[in-house]
C-alpha cells in the first residue's frame, strides 16, 4: 500500500507560475493532500528553507488574492486532491477571521492550519471553521501536557497536526518508539498528520502506520529551490514529481 502523503508548498514561490506547476507536480507524483502555505513576512514557526521561500515569494509580489487564485486553479485541475491552507495569524486576522474562513471554503480549501491561532487563543477561528464546514487543524507537539491535549481533543477536530520534533521545520528528525506510540494512540482518536523533519522515503515508511498521513515540507521546498535555479519551471515540475513518487513508495 502506498503511504498517504501531505506535501507542503509555498504559494507564489519562486513565482506564481512555478508554484502552480509545483502544485500540479505534487498531485501528479501521488500526494494525497496538498498543504499550501500563504507566505507571511514573519514565519517564526518555520525553518530556513520555508522561511526563505516566503520572503522570496513576497519579494516577487505575492498577494493573498494570488493564493486564492492558485487554490482555485489547482482544485479545478485536480479535484481529487484536497487542499489544506497553512498560514499565520496576522494574515487571517487582518483579513477578518470569519471572512477568511468563508473565502477559504469558497476557494475549495478543506482545512486551515494556523499554528499561532491555537485553541483558546484562536480569535474565533474554530467557530468560523464549524460555521463554514472547514476543518481547523490544531498543531500540537508530543510534549503537550495531557490536560492540554484533552482540551484540544474536546473540540473534536477531524485532523490534528503533530509537529513531531520540538523546534522548527526542516531539520532531519529521528523517530523513536515512544514517538510512534504517541502518534498511534492519538491516531486512534483523530486523523493524525505527522510532520517536521521528514525528508526520506525510509522515514515515510517508518511513520505511515502510526499516522493517518505523513507531511513532507522543507525537503520539497529545497527541491523547488534547487531545481528552479538549475532549470526553471520545467525542471521544478519534473524533480518535484519524481521526489513525491519516491516518498510515496
Amino acid at each position, binding site marked *: 500500500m502506498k503511504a498517504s502523503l501531505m506535501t507542503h508548498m509555498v504559494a507564489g514561490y519562486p513565482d506564481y507560475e512555478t508554484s502552480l506547476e509545483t502544485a500540479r507536480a505534487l498531485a501528479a507524483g501521488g500526494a494525497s493532500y496538498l498543504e499550501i502555505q500563504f507566505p507571511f513576512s514573519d514565519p*517564526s514557526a518555520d525553518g530556513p528553507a520555508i522561511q526563505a521561500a516566503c520572503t522570496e515569494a513576497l519579494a516577487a509580489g505575492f498577494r493573498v488574492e494570488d493564493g486564492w487564485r492558485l487554490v482555485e486553479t489547482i482544485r479545478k485541475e485536480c479535484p481529487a486532491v484536497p487542499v489544506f491552507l497553512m498560514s499565520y495569524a496576522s494574515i487571517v486576522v487582518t483579513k477578518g477571521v470569519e471572512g477568511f474562513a468563508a473565502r477559504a471554503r469558497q476557494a475549495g480549501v478543506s482545512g486551515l492550519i494556523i499554528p499561532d491561532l491555537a485553541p483558546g487563543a484562536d480569535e474565533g477561528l474554530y467557530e468560523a471553521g464549524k460555521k463554514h464546514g472547514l476543518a481547523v487543524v490544531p498543531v500540537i507537539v508530543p510534549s503537550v501536557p495531557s490536560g492540554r491535549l484533552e482540551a484540544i481533543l474536546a473540540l473534536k477536530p477531524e485532523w490534528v497536526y503533530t509537529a513531531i520534533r520540538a523546534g522548527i521545520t526542516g531539520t532531519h528528525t529521528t523517530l523513536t518508539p515512544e514517538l510512534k506510540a504517541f502518534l498511534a494512540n492519538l491516531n486512534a482518536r483523530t486523523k493524525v498528520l505527522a510532520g517536521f523533519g521528514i525528508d526520506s522515503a525510509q522515514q515515510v515508511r517508518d511513520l505511515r502506520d502510526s499516522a493517518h498521513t505523513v507531511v513532507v515540507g522543507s525537503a520539497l521546498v529545497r527541491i523547488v529551490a534547487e531545481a528552479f535555479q538549475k532549470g526553471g519551471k520545467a525542471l521544478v515540475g519534473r524533480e518535484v514529481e519524481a521526489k513525491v513518487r519516491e516518498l510515496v513508495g
Partner: protein
Amino acid sequence: MPVKPVYNDFFGPFGGRYVAEVLRAPLDELEAAFKSAMADPAFLDELALVQKEYIGRPTPMLHARNASKILGGAQIYVKLEGLANTGAHKINNAVGQILLARRMGKKRIIAETGAGQHGVATAAVCAKFGFPCTVYMGEVDIARQRPNVYLMELYGAQVVSVKSGSRTLKDAVNEALRDWAGSFADTHYLLGSALGPSPFPDMVREFQAVIGREVVEQTRGLDVAAMIACVGGGSNSIGFFEPFIDAKTPRLIGVEAGGRGPGLGENAVRMGGDARPGVVQGYKSYFLLDDDGQVQDTHSVSAGLDYAGIGPQLAYLGQTGRVEFASALDTEVIDAVKFFARNEGVVFALESAHAGAVAIKLAPTLPKDKALVINMSGRGDKDIFISAKIITPEPWIGFLRREVETYDAGKK
C-alpha cells in the same frame, strides 16, 4: 490599597499569548516562576541589591535649569536613566530576568537585539552571573551598530547574524523564538521590550517600573504637568509611567519615531499613524501592516524605535486616552540632541531625544511653576557613528578615513 496584579495577560483587547503550541508550556512555566519570584521577599531583596551596586540605582533626576530658562515655560526635569550601567534602561529588565532565569534553573540565555542596547545589557548580566549567551541580531543592524556588537563580544556573548526577512529587529525576534522552540528545557529567552506573548509585557513592565518609582520620590513637592518618554516597543515608557497609570495626572506622553515624515515605510508611528490592530510575534496590538497582514518596513534615525509593533499595554492606554501619543521627526531629534548637549551638558540617545524634542515644544506652553519630566532612557555615546556623521560630517568622515589608513599602513 488594592495590590496591582503583576500579571494581566490581556490589556483591554490587546496582549495575550498567540503562539504555536510548542511555546505554550515554556510560557506557562515562565508565568508561574515570575509570579512566585515577585511574591518572594528574598528575590526582591537580591534584585534591589543588584540594582544598587551593579546598575547604579537610583539614577539621578536633573533639573535642567538652562533649558527651562531658554524655553521660558515649565521647569524641565530629566531622569538620567542613561547613567545606568551599560548606558540605558535596558539593564533593569536584563537584571530582573537573569535573576529569574537562575531561579528557574536555566543554563543558557538567548536574546534579540535591534540597536544593540538590549543585547549589550543581556551580554553584560550574562557575564556577571555566569551564563552562556547568544544574541540574535539582524545583519543590517550588525552592519550599522558595530560598536555594540564589539561590546557584546567583549562581554563574551555570541552574536548571531540574522539573514532572514528584512534582517532587522523583528527578524531577530523570529530567530530567537525559533531557537527557544527547540531549547526551552534549559534556555531562558530574555526578551527586551514590553511586548511579545504574555507574560513578557507584564514582566518587562515590572522590572522597568523601578524608573517610575524613583521618579515618584524624586519629584515630591513638584507640580508635575506631564511625563514624556519615547516609545519603540515601549519598555522605558511603560516602566517610567507605571506608578502613574491608575491616577488621572500627570499627563503621560509617549513619543514615537516620526522618521522622515508620513507614509508607510517612512516612520514607525503605530498610534494614530497607519497601523492597524493585528496579531504578530505572539501578541495582539497595533502593527504597521499592509492590507494582507504583512509586516511593513519602518524607518527611524534611532534603531531602537525602528519596530513595526507597540507593547500591548501601551496600545490599550492609547486607546483609553490615558497615554497621549506624539511623534518627532528625525530632524527634530537631532536638534534636540544638540540642544540638551549645548545647554545642559547631557547627550541624549537618539531614541530618548524623541522625548526631548516633544518637551522642547511643550515646555513653552506651560506655566513656570509646573514641571515636565523627560525620561532620558539612554545616553548618546552609542550613537556616535550615526549622529557625528549628521552633525559634523566632514571632520568625522575624515577621522574614519585616517583611522583606516593608519591601520592599513601598520599592516604593511
